[in-house]
């Protein structure tokens, strides 16, 4: 019986994609013959097919999710057996523009929070880290002089304060060293062929959501005020800080002493 499968040969009948390429497999269930694969809609194009495993009758089908929409992909064997695959295409996930506060905060969160490739990563802790970081930015606005941002009235000024957040002092200038890390998350979230794509999509979507809500931080969980963080094994941020709770995903938060 013919069927579409993923790369691990598990049968699939529906997919959610973002605009971009995607490979699936078409399993004839018998020795490979010539097949035809067609799309019902221009949102998904069939680029081509190639035999992956002749004796097992498995073909690789190269698709291109061209634009937002939905399509039914139908694969048919020479003997007339067929299988369908329902595909919904959404837009690529993009960061807010660099010249917006949300764009700046989202990039900071992606730079500072463990990415889904980390061995200890989980989305719940990543979300908590992001929320606490935005809280720290807002708390620093109450006393900006302590953090090298005398007179600051905006989150942007807090982030760009000299020596406070690696790579952001002169944002968007001198920002290049951070780009591979941030671009890696965005690229993985938009890579339909990556098995862990959904992890990166969830991570990126959380960063964007929390960055967009930067003006309304979470309730402070500390007994004083959360005002800093450091990566694990990195020491204290100064004598007037005390560690808050346990570290999360390699990040230790600090509250005012």
């Amino acid at each position, binding site marked *: 019986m013919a069927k579409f499968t993923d790369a691990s040969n598990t049968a699939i009948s529906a997919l959610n994609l973002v605009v971009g390429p995607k490979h699936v497999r078409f399993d004839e269930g018998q020795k490979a013959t010539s097949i035809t694969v067609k799309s019902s809609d221009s949102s998904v194009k069939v680029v081509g097919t190639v035999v992956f495993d002749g004796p097992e009758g498995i073909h690789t089908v190269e698709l291109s999710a061209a634009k937002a929409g939905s399509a039914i992909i139908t694969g048919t064997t020479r003997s007339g057996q067929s299988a369908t695959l329902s595909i919904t295409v959404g837009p690529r996930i993009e*960061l807010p523009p*660099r010249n917006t506060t949300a764009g700046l905060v989202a*990039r900071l969160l992606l*730079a*500072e929070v*463990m*990415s*889904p*490739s*980390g*061995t*200890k*990563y989980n989305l719940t802790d990543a979300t908590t880290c992001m929320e606490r970081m935005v809280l720290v930015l807002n708390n*620093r606005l109450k006393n900006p002089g*302590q*953090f*090298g941002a005398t007179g600051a009235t905006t989150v942007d000024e807090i982030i760009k304060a000299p*020596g*406070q*957040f*690696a790579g952001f002092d002169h944002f968007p200038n001198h920002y*290049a*060293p951070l*780009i*591979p*890390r*941030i*671009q*890696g998350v*965005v690229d993985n979230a938009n890579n339909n062929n990556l098995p*862990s794509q959904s992890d990166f999509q969830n991570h990126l979507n959380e960063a964007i959501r929390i960055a967009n809500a930067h003006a309304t931080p979470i309730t402070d969980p500390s007994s004083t005020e959360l*005002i*800093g*963080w*450091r*990566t*694990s*094994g*990195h*020491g*204290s*941020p*100064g*004598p007037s*800080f005390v560690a808050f709770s*346990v*570290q999360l995903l*390699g990040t230790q938060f600090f509250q005012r002493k």
Partner: protein
Amino acid sequence: MFPKPTRLLVAFVLAAIPLLALGTNPLSVRGVEGFTNPESVLRKLVVAKRGGTINNFCVVGYKDPDGATTAWVHWVEGEAMIWWEPAKDGTSSLVESRRYLSLRRDVVASEKQLKGSTYLVTRSWVNHVISDCKAVGDKYVIRKTAAQTRGKSSKL
């Protein structure tokens, strides 16, 4: 006022706080899960950062309070200290590290000068890591070949 010996003891303990934060015992991460193919990881770093022909590295691991092991990579010629967090698929990338510290720009003399920084480190912290690495770390020499190319740029 405290007597001088007490003041000295307090000063010593305060100075040691950032060092204690590294964790207890430094360790070798050679063969440890998540730190596989160190030469490949280091070579990619050298290519991406356009390092010179010969590059000396020292890698030393520390166990976090939650049991996770991470490592600091001292790149001698690159004058950098880079944090190595293990990746799920074993394809770690130091180019994408959360902490890439320039030993020229990102080091201050005392904890007081950190002023709440999320990344600056003290000279004593750096010296401590380098000392640990010399004692128990893994040393690598990466030689760059002419065929290795530059990384791509982006407009993110």
